[in-house]
């Protein structure tokens, strides 16, 4: 396939771009294989026009066109929820631009996507892909306990196609047992270590559902594997992210959940979390409600309610808290799974780690967590984020699980504004890049696919961009101070808020809020920078006990 075939009109003059909150701009519209560009018309004094729009076509979720009197209007609804309008003179041009944009935005082949073509000069390929290897994480655990080992049994992805080559498993369990246990789990996702809680040595495991089936099959190896995860005499909790009813029904389809009789030391807790279609619809409804600024108060509240988004946030947070609590307060190990173990399971395990582990709340630690618990763990990014809330395309496997995770982290940040090292802007960047990105980090559905597509060789990593000092600085939370404690959020409906920064980002002006935030930043950083700047001052006061005993004691007394 050639991109050129899809581009019927490459350039149109006199196009007017408008988006809410900004004055309209006139300029020349260009369409390239991956971008829509609009450069404003140069002024009368011969100066160059500036580029006003540089839109990744992949970011376009829906194209709506309206033609009247040889003036066409195209509305571009983007995956990051922004809405743009282009007024294009000429009916044919308008239709061409619309169809090209549509075709280019729905190219499904991974290898054709922009990350494979993006070559910024300041970055080197392969940088950033090895930043957070599982080996590092394993070494941290190994320094605490010998109960776990790194297994490379899945090195060629034959045991489980959605797992990474290396996984952490109980040291007492050999690879053959793993292979057999994998056959008893959907998609081969046998229980592996997700998080080691240093404080009391408990662990969190994740897997997919066991293939109990209607005949109540058992699997010794699976039982042995789970049993090996527990200390002698210890007990654990299985948090099933489906309702008890749904888990039972899954038996008819060959799935199911661990019966107490075969797993006597594990206690099962069911917490239903929505995923798939209902979650996507919830997202769509919420965005719809947010975009309708004419809603009366009653209609708004009822739409907000019927979207159920905040209910999903509450559900995710409370289930993660439950898992965290089992570990922190009950000193028990936890196994989390739903059905496939690639969606709500990861939501719970990742969120629980943010709550429990202060290291996950740093900027680097959070990247590591995403790498480990979402990307390597085989969350199907390619399927889940093919379309966002505006798309008219028939939904296949889209579901904003990761967005729900980001929202939950945002809620944590609201309740503990000093405990996350990163600010809201990082979460927004991550949200944008899951849907459309020039980096390869969120491409494909699993490590196996990433290997097949050479993603790590042929694209840049989002992390190496984010970790450049200039970017890094942008996303730091100026109020952050290390907090070693567990951060238990309140999950009462009164404590949860709509994430305005994301859902209303393009709808309401946030000028005053941004200015206030800048002011906070200014106040805090001017305080923090002080000791460095005034090093001379500190120095000259470091030996004053001799020179100025009076001065020093004088203030001390007054203070």
């Amino acid at each position, binding site marked *: 396939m050639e991109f050129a075939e899809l581009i019927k009109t490459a350039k149109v003059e006199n196009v007017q771009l408008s988006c809410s909150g900004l004055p309209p701009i006139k300029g020349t519209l260009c369409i390239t294989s991956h971008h829509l560009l609009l450069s404003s018309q140069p002024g009368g004094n011969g100066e160059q026009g500036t580029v006003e729009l540089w839109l990744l076509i992949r970011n376009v979720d829906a194209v709506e066109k309206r033609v009247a009197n040889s003036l066409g209007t195209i509305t571009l609804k983007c995956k990051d929820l922004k809405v743009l309008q282009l007024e294009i003179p000429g009916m044919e041009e308008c239709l061409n631009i619309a169809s090209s944009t549509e075709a280019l935005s729905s190219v499904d082949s991974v290898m054709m996507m922009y990350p494979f073509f993006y070559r910024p000069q300041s970055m080197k390929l392969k940088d950033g892909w090895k930043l957070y290897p599982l080996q590092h994480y394993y070494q941290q655990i190994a320094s605490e306990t010998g109960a776990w080992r790194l297994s490379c049994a899945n090195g060629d992805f034959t045991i489980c196609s959605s797992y990474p080559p290396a996984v952490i498993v109980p040291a007492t369990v050999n690879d053959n047992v793993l292979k057999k246990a994998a056959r008893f789990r959907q998609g081969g996702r046998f229980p592996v270590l997700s998080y080691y809680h240093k404080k009391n040595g408990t662990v969190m495991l994740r897997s997919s559902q066991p293939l109990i089936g209607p005949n109540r099959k058992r699997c010794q190896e699976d039982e042995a594997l789970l049993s090996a995860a527990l200390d002698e005499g210890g007990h654990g909790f299985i948090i099933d992210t489906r309702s008890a009813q749904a888990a039972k029904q899954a038996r008819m389809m060959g799935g199911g959940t661990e019966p107490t009789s075969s797993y006597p030391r594990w206690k099962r*807790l069911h917490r239903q979390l929505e995923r798939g279609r209902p979650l996507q619809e919830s997202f769509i409804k919420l965005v719809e409600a947010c975009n309708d*600024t004419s809603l*009366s*108060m*009653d*209609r*708004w*509240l*009822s739409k907000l*309610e019927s979207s*159920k988004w*905040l209910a999903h946030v*509450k559900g995710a947070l409370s289930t993660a*808290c*439950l898992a965290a*609590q089992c570990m922190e*307060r009950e000193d028990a190990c936890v196994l989390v799974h739903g059905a496939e173990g690639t969606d709500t399971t990861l939501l719970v395990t990742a969120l629980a780690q943010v709550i429990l582990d202060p290291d996950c709340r740093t900027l680097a630690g959070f990247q590591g967590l995403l790498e480990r618990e979402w990307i390597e763990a085989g969350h199907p990014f390619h399927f889940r984020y093919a379309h966002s809330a505006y798309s008219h395309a028939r939904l296949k496997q889209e579901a904003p699980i990761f967005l729900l995770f980001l929202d939950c982290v945002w809620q944590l940040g609201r*309740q*503990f*504004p*000093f*405990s996350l090292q990163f600010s809201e802007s990082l979460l927004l960047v991550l949200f944008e890049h899951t849907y459309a990105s020039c980096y390869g980090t969120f491409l494909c559905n699993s490590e196996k696919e990433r290997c097949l597509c050479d993603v790590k060789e042929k694209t840049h990593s989002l992390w190496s961009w984010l970790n450049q000092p200039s970017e890094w600085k942008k996303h730091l939370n100026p*109020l952050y101070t290390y*907090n070693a404690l*567990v*951060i*238990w959020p309140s*999950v*009462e*409906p*009164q*404590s*949860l*808020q*709509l994430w*305005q920064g994301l859902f209303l980002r393009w709808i*309401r002006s946030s000028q*005053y*809020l941004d200015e*206030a935030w800048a*002011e*906070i930043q200014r*106040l805090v950083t001017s*305080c923090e920078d*002080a*000791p460095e*700047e005034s090093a*001379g*001052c*500190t120095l*000259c*006061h*470091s030996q*004053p006990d001799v020179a*100025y005993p*009076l*001065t*020093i004691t*004088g*203030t001390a007394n007054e203070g």
Partner: protein
Amino acid sequence: MRSTHIQRNPKVLVELRTCFRQSRETSPHFSTLPWSLNVLLIIDCQNFGPNSPTLGSRKVLTCCARWTDSLGRGEVVFPLLTSSKRFRQRRTAFIFHRSLQVEQVKLIDRFSTSNKSLTGTLYLTATHLLFIDSSQKETWILHHHIAAVEKLALTTSGCPLVIQCKNFRVVHFIIPRERDCHDIYNSLLQLSKPASYDELYAFSYNPKQNESKRLQGWQLIDLAEEYKRMGVPNSNWQLSDANRDYEICESYPRELYVPRTASKPVIVGSSKFRSKGRFPVLSYYHRDKEAAICRCSQPLSGFSARCLEDENMLHAISIANPAHHYMYVMDTRPKLNAMANRAAGKGYENEDNYANIRFQFVGIENIHVMRSSLQKLLEVSGTKALSVNSFLSGLENSGWLRHIKAVLDAAIFLAKAIAVENATVLVHCSDGWDRTSQVCSLGSLLLDSYYRTIKGFMVLIEKDWISFGHKFSDRCGQLDGDPKEISPVFTQFLEGVWHLTEQFPQAFEYNEAFLLQIHEHVHSCQFGNFLGNCQKEREELKLKEKTYSLWPFLLDEQKKYLNPLYNRDFSQKLVLLEPNTVSFSFKFWRNMYHQFDRTMHPRQSVFNLIMTMSEQNKQLEKDFKELEAKMKQRNRQPEELLTKEPLQSVHPVSPALRTSPCFKKEKPLLPMNDPIRTIEGSNTADNRYSEYMEELSKAEPAVVSLEYGVARMTC
């Protein structure tokens, strides 16, 4: 320390009465307490020194009262903690009922589904209900704050008593013996519903301020000064003496500003045509635009009545704005309500009869709708194990945010008419003291940055609410009266302001705590400002002689109420605040309606942090200056010359915003106004996702620490 042991002996009581007669502030209590068996404790704090026993960081005094009566109760031991401001007083008296103390009372977490509780002792004092739990945490509840007391059906563990407060605290006690519960219930019923003004706390509250300071406190807010600030009197507006002795309108203040062209007969005639005589007067004058906000009550127009004087009055107001040829008349009621009023001989202005007016309804509901809306809101927010969906649908059904939006929308309409169209606006509702006050005050707040300062906000409340006769006493239910008169009109005003502070974080000098504290005292009846329904009544009550004004106390502790992000230039530059009133901009005000449910609050507060920091900076700056001064002094001595140089290198570095380690104080200099909100981390027991415990049939661990009622002393 002297604690008096009192035998129930008439002679002792007589002596004590005499002693109390000398201190004016306590005697009313003594005489009006409903019980026959009073026990008095007098504690002389003069000798209360550093050697007294401590409990935590507080000093404890134990007082005993012994007596015998037919019931055989003998002794009360009452710990008193020095945290209370009472102890700044040299001498304090408590009067107790004989069942003043009940042991083994449980305080239940009202949101817990597993009935978590704290056990402690409940004390009843003349002004407060006090609960001290086993960890010595105090919960003080002012009797005047009690909105409702409810005794629930007896359970195995005791008799439940639910107390709902006007400041949205809800406490749920379980009292072991039913008789005690009944006693407390009856006592609280009486105490929370005083029959006359002189029983109110304000008349006995004594912060030990000398008389001249007390009087100065009352002079802090001077409305004449405020009108001068606005620019009146001027060539178009003048002070009218028509109501000098409340002869025209009892619920208006004495000083009223009217157009110069409105003669006395016009004023008198107009007042006769307005409900309760509340004729159109000036509320706010916009100096730059020469436009005014005026307020009045509805006209007595019925279906066809006219009043020439009233028409002249409106004309006079209209031409007092030289730039403009029309004025707006805003009826803040829904059209239907206004029309219904016509049948009762009241109603609204007929545009045909008044020259050059533009008439507008804005549809704010009446006090009864607002009361039941708040009731519904509280029912929803008080539900145990509330799901997100029932919360949102409950929020919708209550209509509360819809009402808040309506009030703000009206204020914006008003402010825009002035700022954009330069037009004068006359605002009224039915009687012109509820919705009119809301709209006029919020409108002024949008237009004038002065009202966004601490002092300015006090002035605004004094002007548009207190002096123009918002019926605080009736609306807050200060006395035992008609419950249908109670309505959260002022609360809505504060919520409107809060919504503005959320949208314009840098435009306000004050913070949320300031709004909450004002709300607290509107209901506390601790200060004289909000007692009574109008100025005339306040004069009759001699409030300025007998009570204290709230404002100087708030100013004294204004550090707590400062918004660290406030930017004066920014606020002044904004000619008009234009808040977004799209529905999604309105939020449930958790910190108001759940201000005592700490578990729902963010665990770390940005404002507190920044406040502490800027406070530290100020302190450091001060320290620096002191050091500098001392250095200069020493530098004059020749032997110190050698050390001069390194020190001077300090000078180029601005002293502001420095926290070099050697300057650092051990503690934050500003005591957090609420340490609980700043706890890092938190306790799982605070949250209710944890209640799978029943499933595990496990005992609740004993380490539960409930962040419940943190004592907020209001005395």
